[in-house]
């Protein structure tokens, strides 16, 4: 590292086999203008406390492993630079998730919610022999932003409704479902709306909007949620009308 400087970080530590509750411990790091918080954590693991646990992989803000709270704000450690915190900072595990150890949280519910939204193409019968679907750039643009989610979980840490109700499917999972709803190649929207249009689905969202604010990939989950609410409402109206119509038809049959 060129031109090294020192800085104090307070890092939340927790060893479930030893500690009854998490606590903050101070650590001094060396840094320069390129040093990210992930570099700082790795520096500590290499040189100071090999028993510090955190997740990391790509270190270029695309794999979504290293989400943590920095000064109380959900951030990717690899994309947040020490140079912007000249007076030091606190580093905690992502909010709203159970803490397993140090900066590692339990993401299993998040993964289940992603799965519940069926984020894959449904009802398209084309096979590779038929060649690719046609999709114009405008059709691509309709869902493209929502396909940028890296599943880092920052939006869940930012969402007070998820904090208060961990059964809420949450921003990223619903965004992913919505991404497929908007894809011109997909026909599974009604199937997904059955999961979305529920109390723990889109209606748990009160549009705080902080999820979009912290999203490192600008996938705008808050927008996806609002669009899903509109879709859910329209779907409800449509199903009521259809139900009425069906009733009339069945009446007609009888007479």
């Amino acid at each position, binding site marked *: 590292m060129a031109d090294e400087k020192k800085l104090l970080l307070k890092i939340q530590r927790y060893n479930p086999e030893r500690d009854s509750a998490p606590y903050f411990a101070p650590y001094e790091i060396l840094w320069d203008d390129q040093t990210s918080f992930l570099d700082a954590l790795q520096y500590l693991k290499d040189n100071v*406390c090999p028993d510090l646990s955190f997740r990391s992989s790509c270190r270029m803000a*695309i794999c979504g492993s290293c989400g943590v709270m920095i000064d109380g704000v959900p951030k990717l450690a690899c994309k947040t630079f020490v140079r912007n915190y000249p007076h030091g900072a606190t580093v905690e595990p992502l909010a709203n998730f159970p803490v397993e150890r140090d900066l590692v949280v339990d993401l299993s519910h998040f993964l289940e919610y992603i799965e519940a939204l069926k984020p894959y193409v449904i009802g398209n019968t084309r096979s590779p022999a038929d060649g690719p679907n046609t999709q*114009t750039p405008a059709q*691509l643009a309709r869902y493209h932003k929502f396909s940028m989610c890296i599943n880092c979980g920052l939006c869940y840490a930012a969402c007070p409704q998820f904090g208060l109700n961990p059964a809420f499917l949450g921003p990223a999972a619903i965004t992913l479902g919505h991404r497929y709803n908007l894809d011109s190649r997909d026909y599974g929207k009604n199937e997904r709306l059955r999961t979305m249009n529920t109390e723990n689905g889109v209606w748990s969202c009160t549009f705080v909007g902080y999820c979009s604010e912290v999203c490192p990939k600008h996938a705008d989950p808050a927008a996806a949620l609002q669009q899903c609410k509109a879709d859910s409402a329209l779907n409800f109206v449509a199903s009521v009308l259809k139900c009425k119509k069906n009733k009339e038809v069945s009446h007609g049959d009888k007479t």
Partner: protein
Amino acid sequence: MQTLNFDIAVVGAGGAGLRAAIAASETRPDLKVALVSKVYPMRSHTVAAEGGSAAVQQEHDSLELHFSDTVSGGDWLCEQDVVEYFVRRCPHEMVQMEQWGCPWSRKPDGGVAVRNFGGMKVPRTWFAADKTGFHMLHTLFQTSLKFPQIHRLDEHFFLDLLVEDGRAAGIVALNMMEGELVQVRAGAVVLATGGAGRVYRYNTNASIVTGEGMGVAYRKGVALRDMEFVQYHPTGLPGSGILITEASRGEGGVLLNKDGYRYLQDYGLGPETPLGQPKPKHMELGPRDKVSQAFWHEWRAGRMVSTPYGEVSLLDIRHLGREKILERLPFIRELSMQYMGIDPIDDPIPVRPTAHYTMGGIATDANCETSIRGLYAAGECSSVGMHGANRLGSNSLAELLVFGEAAGRNAAERCGESGGSSSSSLDAQAGDVESRFKALLRQKGKEKWSVIRDEMGLAMEDGCGIYRSEELMQKTIDKLAELQDRISHVGVADNSASVFNTDILNLIEISHGLDVAEAMAHSAIQRRESRGAHQRLDEGCRERDDENFLKHSLAYYNKGAAPRIDYGPIKITKLPPAKRAYGAEGASQDEKNKEKANG
């Protein structure tokens, strides 16, 4: 220890692993497939691939052209029947990805767009802006959720293989969250564990790309093939090594030295092409080995730009204009701004070559099966023989699909024929793994794995970098031997914790990394020629030597000693070895070949 029974165990959940799991499930829907990975699937390194994935798509392109680009790009060290299969399957796989929802970039008419890539004669690289790997990985992961028979074992660290009577019988993994070992029994095992770029200090790879998948197979007696061929990507960010995609050159970006001169024209890639009109296989669209080697020469001649993070060349994409950069290369812009503080719309990006890809890997046959029956390998961890001595950009994402599919399908057919391994024998093997693991946890000593990792990375850069020599390689070999000794004196600090103990896992990764690095260095020193990514500076080794070295190297593990290096034959089907030429010389060679074919 928990025992889980599956039909197939896929280790690694990146592009190849996911594709294998899906293929196995589609081939035999009644099978139970375990998908084991030390990270959640979307954290796998496939996510970081940017530029695109190759498949013949345009009218004026052909499978023959993709074949000859790949074979000549690999400096004739490819298995040609494998390459033939590969180029034939690429279009199918890319269309399959499209139908699974991959958001490929499109032409105005709604067809799939393709772009230029280095060493490719015709634009044939499918792309999703400059996040192709990300979109492919997520599409595969999301599609895998459709299959209830795929059981993910997320955050399970692969410790060892179970082998019974020369047949793969399962694996042993560490459940990282619980800190407990799990025995996963299966009739066939697919390794899709990725490369080993992290044995170099300065690299484009994620911190998880540590090579233990290769290492485990190697210790079990499977050969690591062509390990001396390690690709340096010409454009990584100085300091971090973060990848700046070849697509930035495919779209028309140029490389400059400190005088603003497009130096590639002096290294067999010229003549200079007009700005904004990139020409296939010329200048910046040369293959990666040649472009990185040109950097080395310019750097030695003192014509590179000095920065606090080393000497760099300049990648200039300003002339593409704001709109095109935002449409085609938005991630490159984001990375440059975030990590370098440079907006490539206004300034050139400082770049330098950085270790990127292991062409070699676990030796397999054309069906992706290794020398252990029922053990398959696919993706970067494998050497199915398609990249030869140098991989072309955009062939590796395609490889994940084509050979991930093949490995999964073949494993599904193989897994049923197991002779019924004896349960007690597998338990004994797993018990042995457990006692070794527990012993390692208790290991005491003054050494640190972080120090060993850094010294290994430096040694590999010094001895097995872009240019190599006998003397430097020998130094690296000696250093690695020393580190092999020292790693047994690493003290495990986190010796009591079970839950998410990454201290012990780092140590295991590095110990496998050391084995892989030794395989690389020994394969390199014994290949007394220059070919593809293996370039030597010492007397008598500066040229390609088909007479003695048109063959695969095979490194075999030798416990406590240097690896044994053996050689295996190359399969040549239709393209006999010729001079590998690019730029004007390559173009005239192509003309002559065409005339010959017509006459």
